[in-house]
Every structure is written in C-alpha cells, then in structure tokens.
C-alpha cells in the first residue's frame, strides 16, 4: 500500500513536472476540434474499409465459388439418350449426370430438384406454377480443383451424349465479377488512403497552429536545452491522445452503419444475418452487442478495432515530423 502511494506520488509529481514546462499544450492543441475532425475522418475511413472488406469477400467468393462450378442445362431430360449403352437405355439427363461424374476433378454432381427449380424461376415466373412445357434439367458440377481446364471439350462430349446440352462456364463471369470486386476493393482502399492523407494534412495544420501559438515558450525552453525530441515528443503525445479519442469516437459512431450494411450485404457474403428482433429484444445489452458484432465479418471487426490506434499513430508520426521540421528553423 505504501509502495502504491509512493508510486502515485511519483507519477503525480512527474506529470506535474511535465505539465509545468510552459508548453501549455492544452492551449496549443485544444481538445475539441481535433478529436471531432478525426472522428469524422474515422467514420469515413470505417465506411471505406467496410467497402474494401465487402469487395474483398465478394471477390473471393465469386472468383473461387463461381470458378469451381459449372452449370449444365439438359433440354428434354427424360428422353432416351443418343449414346449407346451396354445395359438398359438411359435418359438424357442420367447419361449427362454419369458423364459429369466421370469428369476429372469433379467433387459433386447435383441435379436441381423441382423445389430448387421453382425457387430458381420464382423471381421471373412466380411461385406455384405448373408448367405445360418440360423444363430442362439443371445440373451443377462442383469442381474440387478450381476451373475446368477444357470446358469446350466437356461441352462437346455432353452434346454427343445429349444433343442440345448447354454448359455455362461460370468461371468466365465469375472472373469478371471478381475483377469488378477487385476494382471496388482498390477504390475503397484509395478512399481510405485519401482519408488518411486528409487526416495527415489536418493534423499538420493543427500542429503548426499550435506551434505558432506557443512560439515564445518553445523558443525559451529550446534555449534552455530542451532537445528537439523532447519538444516534438510532448506535442506528438498530445496529438496521438486526441487522435485516439477521435478515432475511437468515429469507430463507435460507424458501428451501427456497418451493422446495417452487413445486414444488407449478408445474402451476398459470408457474414451472419442480423438476428431476429424478438431474440434481440429478449437479450441483455452485452448479448445484444455480441449478436450485432457477430453480423460483421471478422476482418472488418479487426480493422474497426485498429482504427483508433491507427489514428493515434498517424497523429504521433505527423506531429513528430511537423514539430521537428519547425524546430529546424531554430539554431
């Protein structure tokens, strides 16, 4: 206890000594404007990072998911196949299923059942339709080893078994969507870089204003032997603290927006959907917060948590550089 009291006393005196060097940083760098502006920057950065993360997830999903699947349409699926079979005659769809199962790299071959077909067509034709025309069989070929090497050869082989069979090469549009998602990802990262750049300029201007406001005490303690590192460190610690507070506030402000965005994007990505409102209402605040956070993709949660430390680091580095450059004007 005595040691703790001694430590408290030491740190109190140490802080008092640091405050009493005449720099009066609370006046040089006021504690309202900078955190407010950094908070606004942090919200923008969080939104841009959300965009970047979302685009990255979509890119990965579209590129790998679509590339690893072929969709095959077999018209008139129940007609007998044109191919010669050693035993009982096969239908066209069964023959295509068998051929696909033998395809090198095939992980799973799945023919959509009626319910799945109805769900697929529902957006265009509505539900509960009883079609007079025979629908083609839709078969999904899931590949274990990425895109098939020669989709054209496969299409020709299937056409020989069941003429008129179409092979949709998902890899092509998947790759296009992947490139689009990559572009969006790059744009989002560029937006983050621009926001960071604006933050640097803002902190630089604020620091310069602070230096101008405290020129006399800085010159005095410099003349008494204060090093550039000491003066720059005092300013940088203050700016880092203010930027951290701003970054933290911005992250908290951005959180509801990000949860909402994740909820909207959930069907297209791997994030969990928003929990039902009844379950939310029944939970206590900690569980509710946990449920909401679960809807965010882990990389986004990580970047969100890194926002305040990143703001502090940008503030510290920018102020160090600005103050040291300014001090170079002194002998």
């Amino acid at each position, binding site marked *: 206890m005595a040691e703790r009291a001694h430590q408290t006393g030491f740190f109190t005196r140490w802080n008092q000594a640091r405050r*009493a060097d005449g720099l009066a940083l609370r006046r040089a760098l006021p504690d309202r404007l900078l955190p407010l502006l950094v908070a606004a920057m942090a919200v923008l950065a969080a939104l841009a990072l959300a965009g970047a993360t979302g685009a990255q997830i979509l890119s990965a999903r579209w590129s790998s998911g679509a590339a690893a699947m072929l969709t095959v349409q077999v018209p008139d699926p129940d007609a007998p196949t044109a191919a010669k079979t050693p035993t009982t005659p096969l239908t066209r769809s069964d023959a295509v299923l068998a051929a696909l199962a033998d395809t090198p790299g095939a992980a799973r071959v799945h023919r959509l059942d009626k319910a799945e077909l109805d769900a697929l067509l529902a957006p265009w034709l509505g539900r509960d339709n009883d079609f007079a025309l025979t629908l083609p069989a839709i078969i999904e070929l899931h590949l274990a080893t990425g895109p098939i090497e020669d989709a054209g050869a496969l299409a020709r082989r299937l056409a020989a078994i069941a003429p008129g069979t179409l092979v949709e090469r998902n890899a092509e549009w998947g790759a296009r969507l992947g490139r689009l998602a990559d572009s969006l990802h790059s744009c989002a990262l560029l937006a983050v870089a621009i926001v960071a750049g604006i933050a640097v300029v803002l902190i630089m201007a604020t620091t310069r204003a602070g230096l101008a406001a405290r020129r006399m005490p800085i010159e005095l303690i410099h*003349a*008494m032997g204060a090093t550039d590192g*000491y003066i720059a460190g005092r300013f940088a610690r203050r700016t880092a603290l203010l930027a951290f507070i701003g970054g933290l506030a911005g992250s908290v402000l951005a959180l509801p927006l990000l949860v909402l965005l994740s909820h909207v994007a959930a069907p297209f990505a791997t994030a969990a959907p928003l929990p039902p409102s009844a379950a939310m209402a029944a939970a206590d605040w900690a569980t509710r917060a946990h449920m909401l956070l679960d809807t965010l993709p882990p990389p986004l949660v990580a970047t969100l948590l890194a926002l305040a430390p990143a703001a502090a680091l940008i503030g510290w580095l920018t102020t160090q550089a600005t103050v040291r450059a300014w001090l170079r004007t002194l002998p």
Partner: protein
Amino acid sequence: MIRLRDVGFRYDAPGASGASAPIALRQISFAVPQGGFRWLLGPSGAGKSSLLRLLALGARPTAGTLEILGSNIGHASRAALARLRRRIGIVHQDFRLLPDLPVFDNIALPLRLQRRPEDEVRDEVHAILDWVGLASRATALPPQLSGGEQQRVAIARAVIHRPALMLADEPTNALDELQANRLMELFRDLSGLGTTILVATHNESLIRRYPAHELELAQGRLVRDG
C-alpha cells in the same frame, strides 16, 4: 571557458542574403578562462546583444571559430548544442518569463529540463526564492509582479542550475542598489565556484564598484580587451 577567433556574424535579414546581409560582428577574438568574469561594454548597436546571442547558442557564427565549454559550435550537432545550453544560464534584458507559469515553475524550468527529481527541484527553488526575497510570491504569475521582482525571478532561473557559463544582459536595470549589489556578490561567488560570467551593462557606477576585466565593442568590433 570560451574562446573566439575572428568570429563574424551576419543577420538573416528579409530580402538580404550572403554578402548583402547586415553585419553585426566582425573579427571578434578573445578568450575567457573558466571562472573568469568580464564586463561587456559598448554603446547601443555596438553588437553586445549579438555577441551574447552567439554565446547563448542562439545562432551560429557566420565566420571564425567559436568554442564554448570545450565544444566548437560551428561543428556541434543539434543534440550537442542542446546539452551545452543546459550548462548555460541567461538573464535576458526583457526577462522572458513565461506569463502563464507561476514564479515557482518559471524558476524550476532549467532543473526540470535536466530531469532532476521533483523533491530536489522543490528544495532548490524554495532556497533560491528565499535568496531573491520572493518566497511569498512563489505562486504568483509574472504579470502580477513588479519589474524588479520579475528581474529577480529571471536571475533566479538563470542561476538555479549552477551553470558553467553565465550570460547577463543588463541584469541590474530594474534592481535597486541593494539588490544590484547582492546580485554582484552572487556573481562573484559563482565565479569563484568556476562559472564563467559575461555581463553586458551600461551601469557605470556598478562597473566602478566592481572593477573587472572589460570587453568593449564598437560598431561590431572588439575595441578593448583588458
């Protein structure tokens, strides 16, 4: 000790550079041994403040060689200059007290920049406040003090860390004769302890009362050393 060899100094005037910049000092050469005391004399504009500025490491000479406390200032790094500055005490003509710091903290500045323990700072500051007769004004802010009190605070701040080099520009301007005499006694004591001291003044009666080696400047040149 300090040593100057053909030291020259030009100010960086706006719009002037190189040879067209105004010359403040020309070919100044003298030396002061450790513990030496010098009066620095000369009319206004003779270059006394410029010389004190160079000696206080507020600028580097534009010509010649300047050695302070064993370091060649022309070649010293910024970190080395900072270390040297901590061994110099300065009494400015305009006091240069920080208006928003209490008297105690103004005086404690040199010790805190040397990272002395806070207990030691407190003891040293209270001792010197007693010596300058301002013990009751420790918590006052400089604008609340008279000119003489401010000058005593400036003197206390300049000597509290027992500097190796003491520079004073008109340190007795705002002091009465008794206070001025006490200050000169302090300078004498410091000099005896090894502090090198230069005092710029126009106070002829003070010079008569405390005769010492004189350096006289005129138009930026050293015209007398003796």
